[in-house]
């Protein structure tokens, strides 16, 4: 295996692992801040217990998100030095801003939240969690703008073999980045909502801490309903934009080979890249692709055959990841709408609780599939239309990268197991009894 392939695998492993923990951090931070605010406003001790229970799960997850993020900050330099030299003006700036504006806020105030229960007023302490929540989501904005630039580079000029910034405003208002933000952040809230609902369902099935977990479930339900609908809507907007700006990705994610007007959607396909066709096609919706992509059934959708062979992304992973994500993304609002109808009969609707328990990991899958689509679908480009991934890797020995790749898999694998064990253990234990928490909150 060569250095480029090993570096690709390492970056994919590192980012996908990091993104197992980030969405829950983004969503659950807001939910915990909300619960603590409710405690401050109403004085209801159950809200305090909810804050501490969900907060503890939040912190275990947060730690893994933070440490796995540190490596990414430097991995552009270690493994993608040619990329870094090329895009430093734009990409480096966005990362530096992310750290200055958001990471500092998040990491400083989480320490204050954990250790400051006895040192701050109730109101101040709750505000601290809002700051952590805001900081996390703001950091997501900056990194998504950075990725957006990789997908649709704007506001630059090429000088001396590198991309020099010419228009900062264009970079931070880049439509691709803004759509990624509008789609990714709500998806994090879907994940947090299903996390809360899944764990709550487990306890409700066992008929324990009923009031506690009914309240928790309903918070998850409200957030899950709204955010899953927003994800679907912004997802459609995003796909329209991809049709216009990344025709190769669109063709691959639909396994669409022949340029044509009234282009159909093939529900399921097995692509045959060598022969530039689909070996199997199941379910054909005539005109649907032109309609969805261009909002005009008579618009032409470019097929893979009209894209130079060395500019086509790998078709199968792009197609499968897209279909999986959309299927799940359609399921999520349906599940929450059902929950809305069952709102007052939750405890008796055991079949629904079982479904929601098993649905807990699904947003994780959907989000990872989304990123596979975004990144694999952009290949062979690391910056779309400008720089190819194959030309972007660091000139380091393949043996070094093999060693670090194995290191990542081992360390992350072990940490992932430990983290999963801790979260599962604390989740199933449930909240501490009422008296203990009240005592420790009042010091």
């Amino acid at each position, binding site marked *: 295996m060569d250095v480029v392939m090993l570096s690709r695998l390492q970056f994919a492993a590192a980012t996908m692992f990091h993104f197992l923990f980030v969405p829950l951090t983004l969503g659950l931070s807001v939910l915990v801040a909300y619960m603590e605010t409710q405690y401050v406003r109403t004085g209801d001790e159950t809200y305090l217990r909810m804050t*501490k229970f969900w*907060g*503890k799960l939040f*912190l*275990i997850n947060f*730690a*893994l998100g*933070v*440490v*796995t993020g*540190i490596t990414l900050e*430097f991995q552009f*330099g*270690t*493994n993608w*030095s040619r990329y*870094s*030299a090329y*895009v*430093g*003006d734009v*990409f*480096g*700036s966005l990362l*530096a801003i992310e*750290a*200055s*504006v958001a*990471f*500092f*806020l998040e*990491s*400083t105030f*989480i*320490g*204050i939240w*954990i*250790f*400051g*229960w*006895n040192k701050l007023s109730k109101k101040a302490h709750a505000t601290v969690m809002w700051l952590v929540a805001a900081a996390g989501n703001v950091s997501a904005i900056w990194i998504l703008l950075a990725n957006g630039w990789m997908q649709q580079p704007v506001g630059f000029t090429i*000088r001396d073999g*590198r991309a020099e*910034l*010419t228009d*900062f405003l264009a970079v931070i208002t880049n439509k691709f980045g803004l759509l990624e933000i509008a789609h990714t952040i709500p998806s994090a809230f879907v994940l947090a909502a299903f996390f809360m609902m899944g764990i709550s369902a487990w306890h409700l099935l066992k008929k324990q801490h009923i009031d506690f977990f009914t309240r928790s479930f309903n918070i998850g339900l409200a957030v899950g309903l709204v955010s899953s609908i927003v994800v679907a809507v912004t997802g459609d907007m995003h796909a329209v934009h991809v049709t216009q700006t990344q025709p190769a990705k669109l063709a691959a994610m639909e396994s669409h080979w022949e340029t044509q007007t009234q282009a159909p959607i093939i529900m399921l396909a097995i692509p045959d890249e060598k022969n530039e066709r689909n070996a199997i096609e199941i379910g054909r919706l005539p005109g649907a692709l032109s309609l969805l992509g261009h909002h005009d059934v008579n618009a032409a959708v470019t097929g893979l055959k009209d894209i130079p062979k060395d500019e086509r992304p790998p078709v199968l992973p792009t197609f499968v990841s897209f279909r999986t994500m959309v299927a799940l993304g359609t399921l999520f609002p349906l599940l929450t709408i059902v929950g809305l109808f069952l709102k007052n009969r939750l405890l008796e609707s055991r079949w629904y609780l079982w479904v929601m328990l098993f649905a807990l990991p699904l947003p994780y899958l959907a989000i990872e599939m989304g990123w596979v689509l975004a990144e694999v679908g952009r290949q062979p480009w690391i910056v779309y239309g400008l720089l190819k991934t194959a030309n972007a890797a*660091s*000139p*380091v020995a393949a043996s070094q990268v093999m*060693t*670090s790749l194995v*290191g990542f898999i081992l*360390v992350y694998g072990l*940490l992932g197991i*430990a*983290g999963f064990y*801790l979260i599962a*253990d604390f989740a199933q234990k449930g909240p501490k009894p009422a008296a203990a928490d009240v005592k*420790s909150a009042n*010091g």
Partner: protein
Amino acid sequence: MELQTVWFFIWGLLWAVFFMTDGFDLGIGSLYPFLGKSERDKHMMIHAMGPLWDGNEVWLLTAGGVTFAAFPLVYAVMFSSLYSALMLILFALILRGVSFEFRNKVDNPAWKRVWDTCIFVGSFLPALLFGVAFGNIFKGIPIDQDGIYLGTLFTLLNPYGLLGGVLFLCLFLVHGALWLTVRADGDLAQRAENLAGKLWPVLAGVAVVFLVASYIFTPLYDNYLANPVLFLVPAISVAAIVGIKYFLMQNAFFKAWLASAATIVSCTFFGVIGLFPNLFPSSIDADYSLSAFNASSSPLTLKIMLIVVLLFVPVVLAYQIWAYKLFSVKVTDDDLAHDDMY
């Protein structure tokens, strides 16, 4: 003053603040097996670092991010050249960060031992390797005209590089021990104070050897000899090291810690000023060195980033100083009993 020169010093400042802040928790983590005799000791040492370590570590992310934004060629060459050393540092920091969160979550001695080891390795290794990395940067790294590193991890473990590692380790051990004298109580604080007293002459000795070795092995003194007024900086380092001892003898522990902070910052600047205008000098040929003038991003980028930094760094400093103020008091038994969130 030119934009690139301003950015050179911001770059140096960010590394200095990183070493000044994360230095004490890397130090405490490195002292963990030596000072952490009882379960309460260990608990207290984690508590001493707990509220502040994460905010401290972000200075590293910012130093890296700023290197990327302002000097992308340096970011690219530095991190790919120092590949193995940096990967080791990153893995160590990963294990350290998770250990604080995971250690007390399971009431099992074997579980705790695993994370205790990770705290130690995760603190000791970065402390040593940052020193090795910067020592090598001061000396010059074998990079060719394409910025390709002609060496291995072991190339970095030369005598001067290792001396840099030992210096950083001493600086951080003293810094960590002094923080414990401020935050810990009773027996632990007393042992930390004794250890700081014992480590001080080692630090002073290593610092002197380092100053002399830098004259012999590196071109650092060139800038100083050309502008003798700059000797003020190492003079401040010497004064600060003496200050540590002075305040320790007076039992003015927070002041001793501040003197230690000043030592770290001034030592970093001794190196940074000596490097100017290079950020990543080549030991093969001076023409291959990466400097503030041949490795920076465009003037527009530097301007925009300057505005961002001037806006946000003071804000960050303000709330981090507030956090330090909140948590530079003694950890109490009450604190230890109520840390159910950690």
